[in-house]
């Protein structure tokens, strides 16, 4: 269903309209469709790449440097950007070069990098457990609400667990969503032990025979050893109750984050093996290029992208579409 909507709406946005975001106001994406929102968000990179790769330009060091600059400004990081440019340089060394070749070449490389399995893993029977983690302020709770809504629309029963017992009012935020979405939520006391909330939530989900249990964890900086250990503990509690769980561990990543995202991903992956990333806030001017160094260095695929504040603005990640939006 979501796909049909994407395709249908995407067509309207043929001409690039970078400023179009303004008119959408509070709910970007509603009018233009999620893909359009993504395109709008990524429009600056796109325009720049288009501008510097005009037809007939020679592939010289100057041009390569400009391409590298665009990639760096999209948060690809100096190493990944340099590597891509090296590949471009090698591939076209001594050949006549035209812009029509450069873009597909880079696109192909990037899709290749992204081309990992982005499907979600569910339990063969019984409750599937999804854990959502990340540093503070990346949009974990909102992403959970969006995922829960999609699951509900797909006909799955959902239970939410508010295991963020640290931040003031975090539980209330998820609580508001659970009321809006009319799904069951298990909450703990503020300052209580998150692992015990998770324990209760797993029992509740099993009792209700829910299809999916989504666990919201407190935002934590990856350098906080105590909090990262707590995350590992949550993992152990889940595993004990349901062997093979959690089925998905999604790390939410703010698209505006720079190279520190790589260290973040490494740390979370070490605490609780991450199965995929959720890249949020792509509707700003940030491009989220940091997913490439993360892929290079940690090997985590992206599973969802968030392109707006509206409840429907979270979509499943599709490598081609993402890369197309970066370039076309």
């Amino acid at each position, binding site marked *: 269903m979501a796909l049909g909507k994407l395709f249908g709406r995407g067509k309207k946005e043929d001409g690039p309209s970078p400023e179009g975001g303004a008119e959408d106001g509070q709910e970007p994406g509603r009018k233009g469709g999620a893909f359009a929102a993504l395109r709008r968000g990524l429009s600056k990179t796109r325009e720049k790449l288009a501008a510097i790769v005009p037809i007939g330009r020679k592939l010289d060091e100057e041009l390569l440097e400009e391409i590298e600059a665009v990639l760096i400004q999209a948060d690809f990081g100096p190493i990944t950007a340099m590597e891509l440019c090296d590949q471009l340089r090698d591939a076209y060394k001594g050949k006549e070069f035209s812009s029509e070749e450069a873009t597909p070449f880079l696109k192909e490389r990037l899709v290749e990098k992204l081309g990992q399995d982005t499907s979600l893993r569910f339990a063969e029977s019984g409750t599937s457990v999804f854990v959502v983690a990340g540093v503070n*302020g990346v949009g974990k709770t909102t992403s959970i609400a969006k995922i829960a809504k999609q699951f509900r629309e797909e006909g799955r029963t959902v239970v939410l667990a508010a295991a963020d017992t640290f931040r003031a009012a975090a539980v209330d935020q998820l609580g508001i969503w659970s009321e809006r979405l009319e799904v069951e939520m298990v909450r703990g006391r503020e300052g209580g032990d998150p692992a015990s909330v998770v324990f209760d939530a797993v029992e509740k989900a099993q009792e209700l025979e829910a299809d999916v249990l989504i666990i919201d964890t407190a935002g934590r900086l990856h350098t906080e050893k105590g909090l990262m250990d707590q995350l590992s503990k949550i993992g152990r509690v889940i595993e004990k109750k349901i062997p093979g769980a959690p089925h998905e561990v999604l790390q939410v990543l703010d698209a505006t984050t720079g190279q520190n995202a790589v260290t973040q991903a490494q740390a979370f992956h070490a605490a609780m093996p991450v199965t995929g990333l959720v890249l949020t806030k792509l509707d700003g001017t940030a491009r989220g290029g940091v997913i490439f160094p993360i892929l290079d260095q940690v090997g985590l695929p992206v599973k969802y992208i968030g392109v707006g504040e509206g409840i429907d603005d979270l979509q499943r990640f599709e490598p081609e579409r993402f890369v197309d939006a970066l370039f076309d």
Partner: protein
Amino acid sequence: MLDNLTRRFTDIVGGLRGKKITESNVQETVKEIRRALLEADVALPVVKQFVQRVKEEALGTEVIEGVDAGQHFIKIVKDSLTDLMGPEDPEIEWRKKGPTIILMAGLQGSGKTTTCGKLARYLRDRKNRRPLLVAADLQRPAAIEQLKVLGRTLDIPVFHEPGLSPPEVCERAVKEAAGKGCDTVILDTAGRLHIDAELMGELKQVARRTEPDEIFLVVDAMTGQDAVNSAREFNEALELSGVVLTKLDGDARGGSALSVKSITGKPIKFIGVGEKLDKLEPFHPERMAGRILGMGDVTSLVELAQDKLDQEKQAEMQQKMLEARFDLDDFLQQLGQLKKLGSVKDLLGKLPGLGAQMGDMDIGDDDMKSIECIIQSMTTEERRRPEILNTSRRKRIARGSGRTVDEVSDLLKQFKQMQQVMQQLKQFQQGGMFGKLKGLGAMRKQLKGQSAHEIIEGMGGASATATLPSGGPALPGQNRPAAPGNSLFGALAGQPPAAKATGKARPSKDAIRKKRKQERSRKKKNRRG
């Protein structure tokens, strides 16, 4: 990163003592600086400008006889960074009549609401103000609730009014502040993605209606290249007066500080260094420069040590170390002192060159506990003269401390290495190398007006013995392999790590780069074939 930079430059201009730095001999280093800054998330246009500036400054200067060329260059880089991010300016423009109004703006998730709470606390406790927090974030579910909880925790009033638009809420709060006995109003606005014209308009309206004295932009230190875009747009829409940088308690290098300062020209006022409400500090450009370069925060460490350590005991220890009569009892005491400074990890993270590698090291406080147990199971005589520890004594100690004999032996082996290092230090000292060893107080004074290379030198020398028996392994410019101290002793004693102390040695950055290069050329070959 920093060690790489320093070494690299030393390699290149090492032979140039007393000669001038020229275009050709800085080229390579400049490239490294560019990369270092990009890795630290400084925005590309800012990097370009900066690199140009450093180059101009370095060109034509002389590498002074007796000064390490790499350190000379790093000093230029660090000074320029400090210069550009400064000056220090944590003051707030207080209104003479009526309440002072501070508007907080920023992107979603940058930490605005928490920062509002921290700022309120800071102003009340340090500046003797009576703040009122205003919940004007009607966008995020439960944002008002969050601020209310913060207010309750801090015992600071929170203003909110259901049914009104954000500009109306703010306007009314300002009007009612005086009546509530408040002289400072802090407006917590909704987080926004800056392309969102409607919310941006709302923010402008808040500013128009309340005429704030200060408008602070809250910026997440982990932000990447986009930091410049958002800062520029906020600065164009609102007349910003300052910046608060948050989430610096993580390991982000915080290059966005330089970007935001360069783009807006507005001072960075405060930094957030933890989720707890007392974790707001005035911004120090010099420390930030060190952080961006991966130099560690030596000044803070020295301040901390000054604050918490027993000075007399330290002086005595230092003397003992220098005379190489430091025994296990002293070591035990030293551990006790060390614990006062916080976790080992925090501490080592502040040392230059070690910060980035801390992730892998993980010297747990458990290790310290274990060492303590072992030493405490020894007799006084054994502590004083570890050499008498034969097998049967070791067995007894292992039983007493609940450790294995191997662990006891490892500890003794490492202690012995440490003693050897001290022996060397003693010889050094006799050779006059430690002439300027002056103890902590003097150290600190020295540090304040010191340049980068002097600090580094200081760390390698004076402070290594003055604060704690540490320092050496990864210090830049020391011409030692930059291997992280893998064992506690290694790190403490300035000794390259004992082989398998806590396992996993990490390949140096150079080795990684070499490997990558090999891989690349291999791939290249494959493609051609």
